[in-house]
């Protein structure tokens, strides 16, 4: 089968060195400490991070560093044919392990001893057309890692660098970046790479099938380029998010409702607490109208979240 | 197990295997028809209860409503598993299973996983859990024969078994279901009626306290009909509880309910 046309176009119309469309968004799961959704083409993944928190299972606690755990789940509507597999099959376990190891390499676990960080990755949609889900699961790996990186940054967990991931393959004697489902299932070589772009270090490298060494270098170089492109995008998303936070904090243009708040908060925190006790409804209403979007935990570092406020 | 009062079909007759079609039983617009076992619409099947059906359990009960036959055994209170967190109130662990020969077609009654959690909820409100902290009570229900209205029978029987085991309860829990067939409400439906029902209402209550612990409704119900259905169930529950009480007291255990 021809995967690259003589004009140099792939089946989905991309050039060999072109990635699928990527999109990232931060803060999609309100209850989590950090969360993100990441899309690569048709693949759509949600990641949520809980922690650092107390280790519920004492026997797993480590005294010199944080325990990082990861669980990968696929929604049963995520593939073309509806999935009827029980949770925790071998493939999910393997991908969970891969994500955990990759992320553990970049989290500064030694700063948070005796704690636990949970990374939950939920695949909403896997690229796979109307076909069986087996291989589709493999293709989600990169998206999962990128989503996890975003979620970890959103949770404010100290990391050495962002880890970004991208895959590359070799078909019709052409190195191809970011394989889609059809290319992935063609049986050619498939290199999944995760790097820390600033440190220029590889944290994940997987390949099935065989490749001559010199070609492998080319393919890997291509994957590295892909990872760097993803990293640039992720950095953009994070910067945009920070700008938003800044804006809401009031340091970057002021929304009138919010500035009123800010005055209240900074001038008389005690007063608010009292006010809320006596007339909880009014203030809380104001807090929430804006507040469900305000995300106080990000804005008021001195008032970690509204719960703390009403604990006075 | 025991003899049976009432002139209805013998307790040990095999379950009716008639493959009647819908039109044979009633038409959708029929106001009146004869129920397959000759009961009136608002007449329950004869209920039979017996406690102490299982020797090795702390308490147990056997219930027989027409062809529906259920055994419930209660074990405990026993120490909660170590892995479970400390709890200053007791825990209840329920399990409902069907024998492979319970249904007309072998092994059909297996997919009733939700019954276990529903039984838990129906009983939870009636048991004084504070009286056995840190411990667990196991309630195992086994449906020997499924003849319709299985779940209400399981609940009533389980509460009797709990009482037999000496578990502290606010009141006995009695449960009755009605089926909506056409325009009529039919109490305590048999399997055949259940398969043709347009809607069902199952009510579980503590009659002396006049409290509903579980209520499940399916199908479309208007408010007057809902009121009627609930009232029928509440009345029937009160009568059922009397039979259960009589059984516990060891007096005349064979009673017919109307």
């Amino acid at each position, binding site marked *: 089968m021809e995967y690259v046309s003589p004009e140099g176009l792939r089946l989905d119309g991309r050039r060999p060195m072109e990635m699928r469309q990527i999109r990232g968004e931060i803060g999609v799961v309100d209850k*989590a400490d950090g969360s993100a959704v990441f899309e690569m083409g048709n693949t759509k993944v949600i990641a949520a991070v809980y922690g650092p928190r107390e280790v519920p299972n004492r026997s797993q606690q480590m005294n010199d560093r944080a325990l990082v755990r990861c669980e990968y789940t696929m929604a049963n509507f995520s593939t073309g044919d509806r999935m009827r597999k029980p949770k925790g099959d071998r493939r999910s376990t393997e991908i969970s392990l891969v994500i955990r190891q990759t992320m553990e390499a970049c989290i500064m676990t030694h700063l948070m001893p005796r704690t636990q960080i949970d990374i939950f990755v939920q695949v909403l949609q896997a690229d796979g057309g109307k076909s069986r889900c087996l291989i589709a699961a493999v293709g989600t790996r990169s998206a999962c890692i990128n989503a996890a990186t975003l979620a970890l940054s959103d949770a404010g967990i100290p990391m050495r660098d962002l880890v970004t991931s991208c895959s590359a393959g070799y078909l019709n004697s052409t190195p191809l970046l970011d394989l889609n489902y059809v290319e992935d299932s063609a049986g050619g070589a498939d290199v999944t790479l995760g790097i820390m772009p600033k440190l220029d270090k590889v944290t994940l490298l997987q390949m099935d099938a065989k490749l001559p060494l010199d070609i492998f270098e080319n393919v890997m170089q291509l994957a590295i380029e892909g990872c760097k492109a993803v990293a640039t995008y992720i950095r953009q998303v994070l910067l945009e998010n920070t700008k938003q936070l800044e804006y809401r904090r009031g340091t970057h243009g002021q929304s009138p409702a919010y500035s009123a708040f800010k005055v209240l908060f900074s001038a008389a925190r005690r007063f608010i607490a009292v006010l809320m006790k006596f007339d909880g409804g009014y203030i809380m209403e104001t807090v929430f109208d804006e507040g469900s979007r305000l995300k106080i935990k990000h804005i008021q570092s001195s008032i970690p979240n509204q719960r703390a406020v009403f604990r006075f | 197990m025991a003899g049976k009062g009432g002139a209805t079909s013998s307790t040990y007759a095999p379950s009716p295997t008639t493959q009647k079609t819908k039109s044979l039983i009633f038409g959708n617009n029929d106001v009146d028809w004869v129920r397959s076992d000759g009961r009136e619409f608002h007449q329950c099947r004869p209920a039979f209860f017996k406690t102490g059906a299982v020797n090795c359990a702390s308490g147990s009960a056997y219930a027989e409503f027409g062809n529906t036959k259920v055994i419930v055994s209660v074990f405990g209170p026993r120490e909660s598993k170590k892995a479970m967190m400390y709890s200053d109130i007791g825990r209840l662990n329920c399990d409902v299973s069907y024998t492979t020969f319970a249904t007309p077609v072998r092994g059909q009654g297996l997919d009733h996983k939700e019954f276990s959690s529903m039984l838990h909820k129906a009983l939870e409100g009636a048991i004084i859990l504070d009286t056995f902290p840190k411990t667990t009570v196991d309630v195992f229900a086994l449906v020997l024969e499924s003849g319709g209205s299985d779940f209400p029978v399981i609940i009533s029987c389980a509460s009797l078994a709990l009482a037999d085991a000496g578990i502290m309860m606010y009141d006995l829990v009695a449960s009755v279901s009605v089926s909506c067939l056409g325009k009529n409400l039919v109490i305590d439906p048999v399997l055949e009626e259940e398969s043709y029902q347009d809607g069902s209402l199952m009510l579980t209550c503590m009659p002396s306290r006049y409290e509903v*612990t579980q209520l499940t409704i399916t199908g479309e119900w208007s408010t007057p009909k809902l009121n009627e259905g609930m009232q029928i169930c509440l009345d029937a529950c009160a009568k059922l509880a009397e039979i259960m009480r009589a059984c516990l007291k060891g007096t005349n255990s064979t009673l017919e309910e109307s």
Partner: protein
Amino acid sequence: MKLIISEMVGLSIGEKHFIQGGIAQDIRSDGRKRLTPRPINVKTGVISQANGSARVRMGATDVIASVKAELGRPTALQPDKGKVFINVDCSPTAAPMFEGRGGEELSAELSVALRHCLLGGKSGSGLSSLLAIVSQWNVFESNCRVKIWVPLFVSGAGIELSSLVVVEGKICWDLYIDGLVVSSDGNLLDALGAAIKAALSNTGIPRVNVAAGASGDEQPEVDVSDEEFLQFDTSKVPVIVTLTKVGKHYIVDATSEEESQMSSAVSISVNRQGHICGLTKRGGAGLDPSIILDMVSVAKTVSEQLINTLDSQIAAAEAGEDES
């Protein structure tokens, strides 16, 4: 379940009093009144691989529902009916306690409650006459996959199951409705009910052409159209209203903090006509029968508003999707 939730939320005694006191005074900790729901946000078509899908957010509660239709074979008992399967999963992203098999208990509870509330008796409640048009299909020739399912339930027909039949006794549509809890802040059942309603209005079932001449026991051959889709009329699909009883009062759309303080909850599904299409009680404590009837009438009034908001949200979401 109640126990687990309260452990998970972890409130101090002061906070418990604050919540209970607020509810008693008809002003809840987020400023709502007892019977005011949170604003609801609907987005349809979020899963492109499904026949229909929707994402519903109410505060921090976030659920996705998807509808997939597959051709199947009717059961021998009911040859003139299609099948509908409802299944809910709790993603660990919603709470760490759903990790591994931790979410199964809640998932099972929600699935059963949804089946009770949406798929009623035969005469059909909410989802009835959904597919009235589907049965008039023409005759054509091609291949079809045939599978044999063990249905989770056979009799339920909140959805008019007879309209899902393509060829009586041989081919029918199986609707797989999957719910996924992405983020959980109470009132999951209502959110899932709303998401399913929205997903059904977003669903297109491909037109099927049946080959002529298949007689007797032969399996007729069908051709599934890629272009023509039939839409559901979801105006009769009920919505679910859960009334959570805290202290002496009951509230709608409880957050998980409020749910941890509940003594019992009643979920009532109501359709546009104000008829009850299903009811389940959750939570252990007993209720006086008159209170239940009172709750039913309150649920009716609340559901009217909910149906209206939901309908306009769905319409807006559908319009928005068509544009993009």
